[in-house]
Each structure stands twice: as C-alpha cells, then as structure tokens.
C-alpha cells in the first residue's frame, strides 16, 4: 500500500510515475488464489501438464490478475472512487518467478464539466523486459483550490 492522495495541481503532462515498488516473485500460488477469487479456472493458469502440452513453457497468469495488480497501483495513486476509465491490453504472458514493474505516464490534463481530469498511459513490464500490459487511465482528481 502506498496511498498518494495526489491532487490535480501535483501532476503535469509528461510526468512519469515510476516509484511504485516492484511486485516480486510471482508464483503459481498467486494464480491459484486469483482463479479462486475470480472463478476463472482455465487450466492454463494452474495446470502445468495442460500448459506444456500446448507449447507454453509453464502455466502463466490470468491477464486479469496482472490487470488487478495494475488496478491496485492506479487506485493507490489517484484514489479509489476517482477512476473514470481503466483499460488494458494483454501483450505478453506472466510466468512464475517474474518480477513486475508498474508505471504510468500522464498524457493529458483537462477539465471535463466540473471535473479536473487526467489521462495516463499505463505499463506493466517483467524483469526480462517483456511488456505484459499496455493500459490507459482516465481519472478525476481533487483540486487544492
């Protein structure tokens, strides 16, 4: 947990948020717990026999598990309740043993009706440099004014 309580005035277009602690030592247990919580029991995510039979080196994480890790980063940064849009594209597989780095870049700062909004690009990369998720965010931020 790293609640930032960020305000609209704190951010500028082009700002990069890179100080989130990496998520280390992703394990099969993480995938199994996500399978249970989400109800997604696709065997590719917990059964090495099935995953290797179709050519994967091992089981790999649910895309939505990585998206969930990213959502934690996002809501700690901009605040629960302030997210207006959150989107993810799954680009690579997350394998056990990986360490993930999550980051964001502010792309736009603007007014929408009464709200002070930002758009941001989101990125999840593993320790081999493989992009796991490209994402985007729209958030409404409180103002200091």
């Amino acid at each position, binding site marked *: 947990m790293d609640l930032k309580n960020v305000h609209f005035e704190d951010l500028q277009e082009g700002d990069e948020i890179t100080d989130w602690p990496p*998520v280390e030592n992703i394990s099969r247990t*993480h995938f199994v717990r996500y399978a*249970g*919580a989400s109800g997604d029991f696709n065997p590719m995510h917990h059964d090495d026999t099935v995953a290797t039979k179709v050519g994967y080196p091992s089981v790999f994480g649910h895309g939505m598990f990585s998206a*969930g890790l990213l959502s934690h980063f996002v809501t700690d940064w901009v605040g629960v309740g302030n997210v207006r*849009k959150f989107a*993810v594209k*799954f680009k690579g597989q997350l394998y056990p043993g990986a360490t993930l780095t999550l980051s964001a870049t502010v792309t736009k700062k603007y007014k929408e009706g009464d709200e002070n909004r930002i758009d941001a690009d989101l990125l999840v990369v593993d320790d081999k440099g493989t992009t796991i998720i490209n994402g985007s965010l729209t958030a409404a931020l409180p103002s200091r004014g």
Partner: protein
Amino acid sequence: MVDKSIVGTEMGGSFMMVERGKIMEFAKAILDDNPVYFAEDPPAPLTFTMASAHWPPPTGGGGGAKLTELGLDLLRVLHAGQEYEYLGEIKAGDTLTSRSRISDVSEKEGKRGGTMTFITSETTFTNQRGEDVLLARTILVQTSKAAS
C-alpha cells in the same frame, strides 16, 4: 471465420450480489492491501466484476456456449483486452444485473501470418436502483490457427 453480422447480438446476462467477503477475497487475490476493502461498507475493486463473468445467468446457459454459437472456436480464442467506464459507485450490498451484446468485430493481419479476428462484447451493469454503474468491454482475439 467470424461473421461481422454477429455485431449487435445479445449475449444474455448475469446477476451478481456484491458481497463484502468476496470483495476482501478479491482484493487479497490482486495483492491490494488498501484498508478500504477490509473496512465497513467497502467499494468494489476496479476489476471486481470479472468475478461475475464466470457466473451463469439465472436463466441458465453460460457465456461459453453462446460464443461457440456465434462461430468462435474457443481453442483459438484469447482474452486480448478489457476496458471499463465507471458510471457510478459499486459497493458491498449492491446487486448488479448485467446484459451483454457483441459491439464490434474487426480483422487484422497477424505478425506471423494468418488473420486475427477481434471480437468485442460490451456489458452494462445496473444496480438495484436501476442505475447503470459500469460499462465493461471484453476484447477477445481469435487466431487463424490454434495457439501452439
């Protein structure tokens, strides 16, 4: 081959009770230790409604069967992306009814040859007061060959 005429097809829906224990379980599963999820009256995490995607609708018939009826081969289908628009609050104690429809079908040439077909289904979640609180889009990709 997936026919573009499936755009607009209604995909049925689901019914979900937003339970406090399930919110805690889901937050733990995504390693989110924000205390709001473990206190009274918790909100739903951003991707929480994924848990309802695997709940059959009350009238029976899961999403998988419907997808195969639309010409999809589930062995060649991957989850390519997910998008959310948050229209209102979702909290423990809410009941959500969802309805889904195919909103887009498009094709793209794959890097390693073969055509990739992207199928987008859009789901609207409505709470017990009749308010639309969430729009979710699931983007599936079907490759021309089985993943190998």
